[in-house]
């Protein structure tokens, strides 16, 4: 039996999720705007570009996929590229599976799977309690609308936006990433060390001659696995994970 009090709590949870999703949605608009702009300028129709965003909901994977479509790459290349770039989501999904509460039935798990992005995951993971499917639904819907509407806007009006504005928007997504990791690093030196290791490795892969030929999807996986393993070996977390 679901009581009225439960229903009110579910609604509150859903609204809280939607509210927490607003900054993500606004950050997404700028990034997906760029994607929309690139889609139509590389020859796709506006609805084709929009449909990619509405069925994928992933930044790096979509940009790479668009390039493969335009270059008429093979389907194997498409599948492999998406697999490598998006493999980090598998790690996030496993991590998320540890935080969800018992409102998550099979349908909720299958539906939430569609909405695991870097930012949605980071906001959910940094919440210091378990997560209900209502909160998660709210947290996914707002960014999804932002991602789709930004793509549509970029695909339809991209041509009239000044270059200086669209270039400056490119940094928006990283501003969001910094706002997630820096406060955590400030509060807890264990996280600070893991973050520094991951960032340093990533810089090495970008700047050292031989290493920089490795694709960016692989680089992210290699750096984050090495940094997290070092963290887990040297600084295992006690009850911090539990809360």
């Amino acid at each position: 039996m679901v009581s009225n009090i439960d229903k009110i709590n579910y609604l509150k949870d859903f609204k809280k999720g939607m509210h927490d999703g607003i900054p993500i949605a606004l950050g997404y608009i700028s990034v997906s705007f760029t994607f929309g702009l690139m889609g139509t300028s590389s020859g796709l129709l506006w609805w084709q570009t929009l449909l990619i965003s509405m069925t994928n909901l992933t930044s790096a994977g979509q940009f790479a996929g668009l390039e493969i479509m335009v270059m008429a790459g093979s389907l194997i290349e498409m599948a492999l590229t998406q697999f490598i770039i998006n493999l980090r989501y598998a790690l996030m999904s496993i991590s998320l599976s540890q935080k969800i509460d018992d409102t998550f039935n099979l349908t909720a798990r299958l539906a939430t799977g569609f909405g695991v992005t870097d930012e949605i995951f980071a906001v959910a993971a940094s919440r210091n309690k378990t997560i209900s499917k209502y909160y998660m639904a709210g947290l996914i819907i707002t960014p999804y609308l932002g991602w789709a509407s930004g793509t549509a806007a970029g695909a339809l009006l991209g041509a009239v936006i000044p270059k200086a504005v669209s270039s400056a928007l490119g940094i928006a997504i990283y501003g969001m990433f910094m706002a997630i990791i820096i406060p955590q690093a400030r509060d807890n030196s264990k996280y600070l060390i893991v973050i520094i290791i991951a960032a340093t490795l990533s810089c090495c892969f970008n700047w050292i001659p031989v290493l920089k030929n490795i694709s960016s999807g692989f680089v992210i996986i290699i750096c984050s696995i090495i940094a997290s393993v070092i963290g887990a070996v040297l600084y295992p977390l006690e009850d911090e994970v539990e809360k």
Partner: protein
Amino acid sequence: MTIEKYFIYLAVMAGVTYLIRALPLTLCRGKVKNKFIKSFLAYVPYAVLAAMTFPAVIYSTGELASGIAGTVTGLFFSYKRKSLLTVAVLACTVAFVTSIL
């Protein structure tokens, strides 16, 4: 590119992306007890975001000067615990102003 070809690409792209995310969430039931794995999973999101951000952020605006100005702005305001949106907007604004100077 024909419409048929477009939809085949789209199906492969969306299908692979979906399965990577949904399978672990559907198959991982119950709580992990192992301390090493628990710690590893807690560190992963921060490590992923750090690796994605650095050094990509300084090249994200297409020119180094505005990229670095935006990065410094972002680091400063996120250290001050400003919200995701505030940090993103301020970083964009400073990058934009730097690029037209």
